[in-house]
């Protein structure tokens, strides 16, 4: 097991290297190349002298691989992600400010998703082809097909402007624990993000449980007289846990992507808005730093998912290199 984890970590580091390489080389394809931020900082009418000074100050005159090497060594030995051109802050400052906010949003939505969609999927699978199943599947289909911003806007209109009068925007202070001190303010964004991911996860859960319900061991369990509930939870659910854990690990980038839309609709300064702002203003260090961070989250999530998979499924633990 330890051997397996170590190998997975080594592979993840390789993947991170690829992510850094790709995001680092993308700005070279821009108009004005890596000097694009100079125009964003100094203005479009910057004199060539100013541009040259800026290039010298920011190390833009070095060849690609020298710059890449500098970036890597700074990152690995000094944990230095660079300096934001546009916001005049270190990238770590921006990350420390906004990541916790998005993380709380995404995490609470993830937990709520699990709490809602696992039982929902199980009930749907056990009462297959009933009115309840059809209506839940239909709702999931519609939610899945809806642009996320549209759902948010409709929710905003219904529950903020017409009924209930929930706050249309979460508290805008930078305290990451605001979600605990003012949960009502987060009701709409967290609710929308949850609803969007419940659509996918519950549908997947239903399919997985259905697949396990036709297995031989379920029939055996029924034959020896297990109650329906026992069959569902002891036999079907435990065997369906594997795919669910994998999907959860894979859904982390999706959560961050979804948070981007939620943040823009509900005007909540978080990671997503920062990324869009940085990308459209060619603030390369921020884009690099945030992409790297999300990639680390995703890889860690996948790794944890695989380890958890080994915990819930002894067969994988023995084989070790099932993937």
């Amino acid at each position, binding site marked *: 097991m330890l051997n397996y984890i170590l190998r997975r970590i080594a*592979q993840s580091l*390789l*993947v*991170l290297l*690829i*992510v850094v390489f*790709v*995001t680092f080389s*993308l*700005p070279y*394809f*821009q108009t004005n190349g890596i000097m694009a931020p100079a125009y964003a900082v100094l203005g479009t009418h910057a004199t060539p002298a100013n541009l040259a000074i800026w290039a010298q100050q920011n190390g833009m005159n070095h060849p690609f691989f020298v710059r890449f090497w500098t970036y890597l060594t700074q990152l690995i030995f000094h944990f230095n992600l660079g300096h934001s051109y546009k916001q005049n802050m270190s990238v770590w400052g921006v990350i420390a400010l906004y990541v916790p906010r998005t993380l709380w949003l995404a995490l609470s939505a993830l937990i709520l998703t699990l709490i809602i969609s696992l039982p929902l999927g199980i009930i749907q699978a056990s009462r297959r*082809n009933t009115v309840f199943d059809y209506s839940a599947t239909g709702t999931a*289909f*519609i939610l*899945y*097909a*809806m*642009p*996320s*911003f*549209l759902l948010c*806007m*409709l929710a905003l*209109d219904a529950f903020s*402007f017409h009924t209930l009068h929930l706050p249309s925007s979460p508290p805008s202070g930078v305290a990451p624990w605001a979600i605990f001190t003012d949960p009502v303010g987060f009701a709409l964004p967290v609710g929308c993000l949850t609803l969007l991911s419940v659509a996918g996860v519950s549908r997947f859960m239903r399919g997985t449980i259905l697949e396990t319900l036709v297995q031989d061991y379920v029939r055996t369990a029924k034959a020896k007289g297990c109650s329906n509930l026992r069959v569902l939870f002891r036999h079907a659910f435990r065997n369906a846990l594997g795919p669910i854990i994998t999907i959860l690990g*894979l859904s982390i*980038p*999706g959560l*961050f*992507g979804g948070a*981007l*839309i939620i943040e*823009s609709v509900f005007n909540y300064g978080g990671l*997503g808005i920062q*990324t*869009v702002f940085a*990308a*459209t203003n*060619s603030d390369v260090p921020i*884009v690099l730093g*945030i*992409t790297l961070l*999300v*990639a680390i989250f*995703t*890889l860690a999530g*996948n790794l944890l998912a695989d380890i958890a998979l080994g915990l819930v499924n002894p067969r994988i633990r023995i084989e070790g290199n099932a993937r």
Partner: protein
Amino acid sequence: MTEQISSEILHEAIDRLPTSRDVRPAIPKTDDEIIPLWRQRLAIFSHNKLAVASVIFLFIVTASCYLVPWLHPTNQTNQAATFNIPWNQPPSWAHPLGTDSSGFDELGRIFYGGEYSLTLGFLSGFITIVIGTVYGMISGFMAGFTDTVMMRILDAFLSIPYLFLLITLISIFGRSTTFLIGIIGFSLWWGNARIIRGDALLIRNLEYSQAATAMGAGKMHIIRRHVFPNSISNIVTVATFSVADAILFLSALGFLGLGIQTPQTDWGTMLQAGSVQIQNGYWWEVFPLATIFILVVVSINYIGDALRDAFEVRLIER
């Protein structure tokens, strides 16, 4: 021969489908007739009434998006000409779905925007499946070191959120319609490649592939004659879902103001502009389009589900 079976077995297989308790499909029931594979699939697909309805609906919407702007042209691009037309006008005989906040005819604009949304959706969905299939097939079939390297590259791209990648690429390459197709296609193929690679890896180790190798078949031959035809079920299904995803991602871009540039438009941009107006009670700028949009994506997804059933060889064979 697994590809040629009698109608008797097909009937049994259809009976085993979840949706076929009560009605039997209209296939001639003779014991000795051999039914070609595509007709078996068509029979299973057309047995699913909702899927057939989805195909018809999608066809009608697509056809009207491409034809209506020609048959009944409305002004959708000339902003100077809309000064005389009241903005945000409720539905009337002159404008069946009212006018939007720039004075454009809403009904005509739905079709006009749909032309862009659907074209981009279908084309970039097509790109994702072509790149994904080629990449996945090569990676799954080569196995070993090549596979490991190709999969790690895939992992790297899969760990970046699609939207972040899309936005970064758009801010670099601009957003002309052609580039948007390419960018969306390029940003969404990673997942497809992984699914198809899994298939290729599986089929490569099956007995018939090994038998072909033993008989001296080349790699390209095995990919063409064995791996590709046997993973076609996943390819078709994944392609369908990719089109729906591409349409959704384009709408998200429209919301962020990175969609098709005005005065041209796409459904995402229109929905964004309209959803701002719900608070003013201008329902005609959102709900008709939202209904069409959701139904289009739902029907594409539903067609994908039905296709998966139709291509599920195991349902036919046993």
